[in-house]
């Protein structure tokens, strides 16, 4: 298909449709309303269903039902709405259901504000909800990548039978950029038929029970270990990242993701012109985190700079990536304020000049 100028939210909606997702359940929340709005008229066109749920709690449980019935299904929301889905997402993970959840992050905590943020990093990558489970989390930095990753998300979800989250910030939701959808797109994984789905029991397979309850602790322990193995596989096979700039000879290596990484790239290009060599590792999967890539690039750079729209949640993963203590610097904007290329440039110069303070750690 030809390139189209699309709003991120619409591109995300269309990507779902292109990926064969014909079911969307969601509840309005800024800054991602255009996703449900777009799909409310798009889904009927493809014979699918759009339901405005009564809440995010209901949305995620509708996903649980639809995914359990073997269909591709998506919801989208923004930070407070994602928090309301916590229990339901844990259920999806426990019952091994492939669902795709889009979080267009806004500033928190609480009602916070509606402007861009990355303060849901921990929530996305670590403790979103109770129990031992993980979300595969993809973080696009452009509208085209958002469209691509949403499509990949469905394949990954189906392959691993696990919830996959696509996280962007308000810019990804609101921005327009050219997008291209490929007509001959093939799944990125070989996908077996969903024989586990509850589609009416015709006695041609075991009874399908979509369930996360295991009253026998020994059985639940086996289930937990089974899930863990799956997560180990994802950590082995699904890490995605991109590197930029002088990866082999950088004065400073920046770790940043999402639209913040674009801002950093602008800064890197400007710094290059001034002869300052900066590299960047951009995690595309927030979980599994590209520990190895960060370690390798960082090992060749003098200093490390983490740039984030949070108080430094990703620093922990960066620190875990490094096998020896290294100076880590940090720049952030919070509450919906955005990082500018100029700020990054200044920070890098400060690091080089030795006037930037390292992040302290207990």
């Amino acid at each position, binding site marked *: 298909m030809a390139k189209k100028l699309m709003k991120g939210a619409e591109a995300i909606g269309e990507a779902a449709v292109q990926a064969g997702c014909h079911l969307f359940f969601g509840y309005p929340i800024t800054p991602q309303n255009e996703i449900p709005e777009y799909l409310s008229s798009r889904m009927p066109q493809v014979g699918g269903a759009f339901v405005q749920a009564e809440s995010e709690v209901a*949305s995620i449980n509708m996903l649980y039902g639809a995914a359990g019935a073997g269909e591709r299904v998506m919801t989208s929301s923004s930070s407070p709405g994602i928090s309301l889905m916590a229990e339901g997402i844990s259920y999806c993970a426990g019952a091994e259901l492939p669902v795709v959840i889009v979080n267009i992050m806004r500033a928190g905590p609480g009602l916070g504000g509606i402007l861009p943020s990355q303060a849901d990093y921990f929530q996305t990558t670590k403790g979103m909800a109770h129990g031992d489970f993980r979300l595969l989390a993809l973080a696009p930095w452009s509208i085209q990548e958002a469209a691509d990753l949403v499509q990949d998300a469905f394949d990954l979800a189906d392959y691993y039978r696990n919830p996959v989250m696509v996280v962007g910030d308000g810019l990804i939701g609101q921005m327009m950029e050219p997008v291209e959808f490929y007509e001959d797109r093939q799944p990125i994984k070989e996908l077996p038929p969903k024989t586990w789905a509850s589609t009416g029991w015709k006695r041609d397979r075991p009874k399908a029970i979509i369930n996360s309850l295991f009253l026998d602790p020994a059985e639940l322990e086996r289930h937990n270990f089974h899930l863990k193995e799956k997560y180990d596989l994802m950590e082995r096979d699904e890490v995605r990242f991109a590197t930029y700039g002088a990866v082999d000879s950088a004065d400073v290596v920046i770790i940043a993701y999402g639209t913040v990484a674009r801002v950093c790239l602008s800064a890197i290009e400007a710094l290059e012109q001034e002869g300052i060599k900066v590299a960047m590792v951009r995690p595309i999967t927030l979980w599994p985190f590209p520990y190895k890539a960060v370690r390798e690039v960082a090992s060749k750079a003098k200093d490390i700079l983490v740039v984030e729209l949070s108080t430094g949640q990703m620093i922990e993963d960066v620190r875990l990536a490094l096998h020896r203590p290294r100076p880590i610097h940090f720049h952030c904007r919070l509450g919906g304020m955005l990082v500018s290329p100029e700020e990054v440039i200044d920070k890098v110069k400060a690091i080089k000049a030795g006037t930037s303070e390292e992040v302290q750690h207990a």
Partner: protein
Amino acid sequence: MPEAVFVRPDSLSDVSTHYCPGCTHGIIHRLVAEVIDELGIRDRTVGVAPVGCSVLAYNYFDCDFHEAAHGRAPAVATGIKRARPDLAVFSYQGDGDLASIGMAEIVHCANRGEKITVVFVNNAIYGMTGGQMAPTTMPGQVATTCQMGRDVDLVGHPIRVAELISTLRTPAFIARASSHSPLAAVNAKEMLRRAFTYQVEERCFSLVEVLSTCPTNWGLTPAESTEWLEKTMLPYYPLGVFKTPDGDDRAPLPRKP
């Protein structure tokens, strides 16, 4: 040759349930299974189990099942039905599940007119968690979180779900039945049959509230429980059909403008 006139329905697995002796969850399971058999929809039926004593319903019904989060069975059922409108979808929920934590989900599922069937088992208590007060617990009834009996001045009166739901304008079949006696069970089955039939005909959402006993947490024998249900619950929870899809509006009118 003897003819078997009362046997285990096909849709009911041949296993013993974990329910306490005399718990009428078992009766209601059988009635639902019989209706599924009679309508011949077993191989396209998907059930949704709640969190509550009937959480293991998936072990007892011989059809595909989802185990839903506490209170969210109507949302799960919505997801299944919208994904696969050809399936017959029912949720089976307790009173804590449906009338407390799941109030928003049941009201909205009913109001959207999702073409599913809800079997709502009202035993006036939280059975599974050991006898806490439910929204449906009777005035004066003792529960572990109202050890002096439900005080309506502090926590209000029991919620009548059939009445509440039947005020919604969206066409639906809403009825209340009971399971405390064989004749009540016969009537309950009739209500369930209508409820499933309306779904199969793609007409409307249907909900049958079935009064049920919880001898264990009521602290009564099964026989005493039957009696208590009849004396205490029936007057407050009248049996009957509240709403049919072609009936008129059941919302009360304002008394004065």
